[in-house]
């Protein structure tokens, strides 16, 4: 196994970016971290049904991506999608209620953690089958292009999807028809326990783009600004009618695939190196170093977000379950 270590050599200087953008990046990353920490606690205490897949450590990728998009752009989400949903603007209350299977959830409790999303915020409820969202994202982009709306679609997928046929069929269709779709690979190095070097000869997923004659780039996925820059370029290209881009974001999940996975298959030095590049505290430190925002203001912001998450939990726990007879709703339009 070839170890992939975090590379921060391309980390951007904050001073050239508007403070408003940087603050929003931190706000959304912190919200995702706090939201998932609370969800995990409720889940482990047995208060939340189902199963959850945490994105601790991967927050910068969806945040950098979604902040580079327009509000009316679309995203498709993965099974590890809480962060993607929050980054696109899905409210924490309805998202938390969905995790509890409540009627007030963003999908009325029909989806659960594996299928979160809200079309009102441009987030198609998540497709939890690895790789299966790629053709659908291409189709959303097909319609956006036909209607001349100038909207683009981001298809989030993990590097585990990189060897699925549907992803390749979708990349090819998007390439030949110049569809406004961005394939965003959250490469956290492991498909459950299988390291990417056991799954492909390529060093990078982005190499696959060459097969379809589309641009493919690899960026540091723990730096929201690196991601933001890459997505902004890809989005412009897509809006200009020049077709898709594959953007690979190197990142790392802090925990296992899910609760019962202790992730012991990962070398300790690799874990240690990536934990040292935890995107949330790293970005906080960079904000402090940038000195346009004070530590006390950041602390206030964090208090505010903790309160938002507390409100979301209370909303979710106090909401009703859907009536059992409503299990028959929405089978057909």
């Amino acid at each position, binding site marked *: 196994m070839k170890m992939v270590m975090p590379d921060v050599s391309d980390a951007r200087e904050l001073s050239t970016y508007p403070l408003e953008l940087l603050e929003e990046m931190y706000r959304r990353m912190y919200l995702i971290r706090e939201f998932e920490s609370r969800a995990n606690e409720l889940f482990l205490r047995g208060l939340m049904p189902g199963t959850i897949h945490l994105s601790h450590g991967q927050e910068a990728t969806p945040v950098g991506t979604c902040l580079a998009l327009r509000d009316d752009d679309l995203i498709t989400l993965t099974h590890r999608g809480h962060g993607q949903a929050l980054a696109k603007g899905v409210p924490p209350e309805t998202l938390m209620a969905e995790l509890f299977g409540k009627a007030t959830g963003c999908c009325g*409790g029909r*989806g659960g953690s594996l299928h979160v999303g809200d079309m009102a915020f441009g987030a*198609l409820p998540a497709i939890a089958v690895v790789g299966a969202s790629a*053709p659908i994202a291409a*189709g*959303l982009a097909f*319609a956006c292009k036909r209607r001349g709306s100038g909207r683009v679609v981001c298809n989030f997928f993990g590097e585990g999807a990189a060897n699925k046929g549907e992803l390749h069929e979708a990349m*090819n*269709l998007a390439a*030949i028809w110049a569809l406004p779709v961005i394939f965003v690979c959250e490469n956290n190095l492991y498909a459950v326990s299988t390291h990417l070097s056991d799954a492909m000869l390529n060093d990078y997923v982005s190499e696959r783009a060459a097969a379809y004659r589309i641009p493919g780039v690899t960026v540091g996925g723990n730096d929201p600004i690196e991601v933001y820059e890459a997505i902004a370029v890809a989005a412009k290209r897509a809006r200009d009618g020049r077709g898709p881009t594959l953007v690979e974001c190197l990142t790392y999940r802090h925990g296992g695939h899910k609760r019962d996975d202790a992730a012991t298959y990962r070398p300790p030095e690799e874990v240690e190196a990536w934990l040292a590049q935890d995107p949330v505290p790293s970005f906080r430190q960079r904000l402090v170093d940038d000195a346009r925002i004070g530590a006390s203001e950041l602390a206030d912001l964090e208090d505010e977000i903790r309160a938002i998450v507390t409100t979301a939990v209370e909303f979710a726990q106090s909401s009703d379950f859907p009536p059992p007879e409503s299990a028959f709703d929405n089978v057909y339009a």
Partner: protein
Amino acid sequence: MPDVAQDTLEPTAASDRNLTIVQAMREALVEEMRRDPDVFVVGEDVRIGGVFLLTLNLVDEFGAERVIDTPISEAGFTGLSVGAAIEGMRPVVDFQYGDFVFTAMDQLIQQASKLRYMSGGQVKVPLVIHLPTGASGRGAQHCNPIEGFCYPIPGIKLVTPSSPYDAKGLFKSAIRDDNVVLFCVHKHLYGSKGRPLAESSISREHVPAEEYTIPLGTAAVKRGGEHVTVVANMLMLHRTLNVAAQLEQEGVSVEVIDPRCLVPFDLETIVASVQKTGRLLIVEENHERGGWGAQLAADVSREAFGYIDEPIRRLATPDVPIPFSPPLEARLIPDEERIRAAVLAVARGE
């Protein structure tokens, strides 16, 4: 390339309205594409008409932007159509052979059929998938009764027309429907140039030029009768009608019903017929295990129990793959001889 000379877009004269299924469906598609700019066709080789010439000459009127050739990429273009449908377009996906939808089954079963449901009704997926079905002398991988494999999927509609008039009206309804509609047509019933067309009283029929639609989920009594009810669809319906015409001469009066749609299913029409005849035979090309006829038999047993004079019978394809050699295929797919024997067995209580 198919020979297109004798299969033109429009009948040659206004009086020549005696159409085949493929001509009737093509008219439906043209009318719906003229009516709604969001309707488009996507699939392999659709610019030259597709395998059964459904889309013949459509590119001349609608252009390559709405008659879209794809790579051989079934999961890709099925999923792409799901996405386009979510964003409000109305794709008609043309499969060369329904058999190839197996490579797109995740997109059909896990995505198309349930995205509306699992999103809590946030999205609609108005999508038609055209699937040529059934055995037609092409061996084991181009013969699947695809309607049988799709029948149990919750959240889809499943249409199996047997006659040109029905095919046109149902196809128009399918394109206007806001759900995933699988539109299965038997390979021996299209009447496309160069392909065998099963002969029966409804292989070609008058199709009015005037606009009409047929609601999904309505059965049709194709032949009235008194002694026994036979429910059959697609190729089996044609064979049953031929058998019923013979048996009429022999004093056996057979009521023949075409369900036309498997989902939603018009049980009432069939129950009413069985209440009259007291006898029911179900003929389907599906493999016998788990065919729609098994569900129908259970439903009729429940709804018409007091009226049934003889055990309900089923005639279906045995549970083996379909071989190429013509006499072997013919041994497995229910033919007129076996349908006749089954009708007589039910009618006479043998």
